[in-house]
């Protein structure tokens, strides 16, 4: 290799190394952007990008007009059969004439955040996010604060104080089963019986997906453990695997429909979606092991369609949006307020599975402990 070529290659390598270290994300962008956004809240700017409530833009009508002018909304990771999102997206599009672009319906919450980061500055970046609490708390630097009109109906524990994230709907972890294919289990321990050979599945891997993590937590509490100790849940699945009952297929509407996974650990609102495909699908909420989890809404700080994003939040927290979630079997965050005000859809709320025992909501600390244990022990248990 000649000297000039060697020099050229080494300068390319050095330049690349400098480029990479320069392009590495800065460490502490959360504190500065948070404080400036909070200080600007309610200051009455008429730019939809920094509006923190509909009042800022001059009322709901102005917000609707601004959103209609944008004409589009980018959503991500919203499967149509997840808590009735299919109908919600259709209803929003029909009501305001805004085209909703739904990307990556099978993505996880982390995929949503990754898309926000990697598509920043383009007009395909997600405008709004529906994410698990852990991902929401870890990424508040990416969100814009917004308080919808029904802000006051939501308890303080279920929202971030300036509106960076607001819980939207939740459910309880349940065991769904096809009563035509397997005998009805009365408890989680029943699933170890030989009648369930090769039939019990999780909705994903608990080290990857929120739903599966809560499934293992629920198995733990139902097997005598507690929210602080997920080891009994991991042991339960280990026994399930040893008995040959554990099915490693990722449970989804397709696998439920074709009968590959007749028993599924999943959120109760997702189980109700399966009833449409399999009329004999029933849901069991184990007694005294009612584990609940809520998801959260957030608006992308650099949303390409900021007014449409804020209108989407207004729609979701309005009576209409909350009722659509209720129809999907989820428990909307304003359920208590709506029941008190009498605006709740009684038929839909009667369809929710019966709860026996007090619902428990794992704290972030308990979840962190559970995750630590899963990271090292899950693969070994079901490998």
């Amino acid at each position, binding site marked *: 290799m000649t000297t000039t070529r060697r020099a050229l290659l080494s300068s390319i390598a050095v330049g690349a190394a400098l480029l*990479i270290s320069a392009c590495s994300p800065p460490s502490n962008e959360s504190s500065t952007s948070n404080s400036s956004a909070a200080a600007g809240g309610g200051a009455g700017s008429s730019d939809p990008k920094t509006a923190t409530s509909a009042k800022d833009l001059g009322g709901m009508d102005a917000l609707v007009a601004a959103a209609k002018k944008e004409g589009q909304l980018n959503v991500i990771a919203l499967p149509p059969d997840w808590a009735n999102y299919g109908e919600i997206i259709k209803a929003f599009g029909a009501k305001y004439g805004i085209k909703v672009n739904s990307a990556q319906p099978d993505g996880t919450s982390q995929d949503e955040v990754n898309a926000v980061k990697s598509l920043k500055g383009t007009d395909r970046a997600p405008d709004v996010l529906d994410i698990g609490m852990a991902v929401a708390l870890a990424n508040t630097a990416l969100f814009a604060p917004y308080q919808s009109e029904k802000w006051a109906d939501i308890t303080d524990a279920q929202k971030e104080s300036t509106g960076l994230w607001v819980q939207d709907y939740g459910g309880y972890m349940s065991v769904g089963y096809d009563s035509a294919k397997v005998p009805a289990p009365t408890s989680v321990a029943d699933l170890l019986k030989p009648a369930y050979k090769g039939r019990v599945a999780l909705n994903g891997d608990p080290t990857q997906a929120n739903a599966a993590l809560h499934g293992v937590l629920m198995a733990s509490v139902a097997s005598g453990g507690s929210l602080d100790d997920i080891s009994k849940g991991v042991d339960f699945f280990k026994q399930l695997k040893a008995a040959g009952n554990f099915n490693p297929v990722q449970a989804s509407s397709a696998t439920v429909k074709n009968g590959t996974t007749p028993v599924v650990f999943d959120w109760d609102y997702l189980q109700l979606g399966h009833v449409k495909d399999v009329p004999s699908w029933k849901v069991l909420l184990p007694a005294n092991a009612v584990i609940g989890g809520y998801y959260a809404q957030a608006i992308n700080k650099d949303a390409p369609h900021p007014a449409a994003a804020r209108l989407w939040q207004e729609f979701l927290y309005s009576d209409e949006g909350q009722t659509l979630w209720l129809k999907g079997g989820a428990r909307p965050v304003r359920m208590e307020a709506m029941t008190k005000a009498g605006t709740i859809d009684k038929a839909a709320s009667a369809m929710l599975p019966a709860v026996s025992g007090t619902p428990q909501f794992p704290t972030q600390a308990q979840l962190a402990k559970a995750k630590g244990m899963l990271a090292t022990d899950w693969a070994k248990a079901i490998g």
Partner: protein
Amino acid sequence: MLPFFAYVGIFLIIPTLVVVIAAFLDGANRPTLANVSELAEPYIAKTFWNSIWVSAVSAVIGAVLGALLAYVVATGDPDGLVRTTVSSASGVLAQFGGVTLAFAFIASVGPAGLLTTWILGAEAAPTWLLSLKGLVLVYTYFQIPLMVLVFLPALDGIRPQWREATETLGGTAWDYWRHVAVPILTAPFLGALLLLFANAFSAYATAAALITQGAPIAPLQIRTAFSSEVLLGRENIGKALALGMVIVVAIVMTLNSMLQKRSSRWLR
């Protein structure tokens, strides 16, 4: 040469440098050895071992069966139907991987696949395809054609005069194979075997489509590190895992190039 260097720089050198540098940085971009020391954890060591095991077994099976198929093709009519069909089919099937291949296997021998329900009935739903053994089977599907593609030139390089010379000097078929053909073919065979190993080791899309529980191999651990919504902030551990994979493949490819240098002596 500049367009070539630009292409290689953007798609090979820069991503490799990103991975290598970021493997030693923590979340706040300060240097740390924590990510690399995480590689020594038993569950990650187990995934690397699983990856090596799956790659080695599928490489050996692919190499042996592919070599036999290539031998059949090489000793046949050079313009015949067998040779043209197998060569073009191998060219296509060697690249047939990823989600399409996984779907083909799930649809035929998966838990609810066509063959499964036909032979075992709809209630059986066996899940062996979704384990490491099933992964080995699916990998051999593209390993065998790749072996044919890579090994056929080596077989073509064996001149029929050598066989004639052996027989003229009174040797049997066994003598020919033991003293002439096998020593010449060993180096290209081992080189192709290593190539198959590296091919299976770095395969991601097929495994990702088949296995969704437990992340038993290294590329799937990297997927968990990057897209898990449960274990957050492990991107740099993912990059350290990628660095580990780069090192394994670099060792394999170095051995491969050493063997290639040796084998090319005979095929001039």
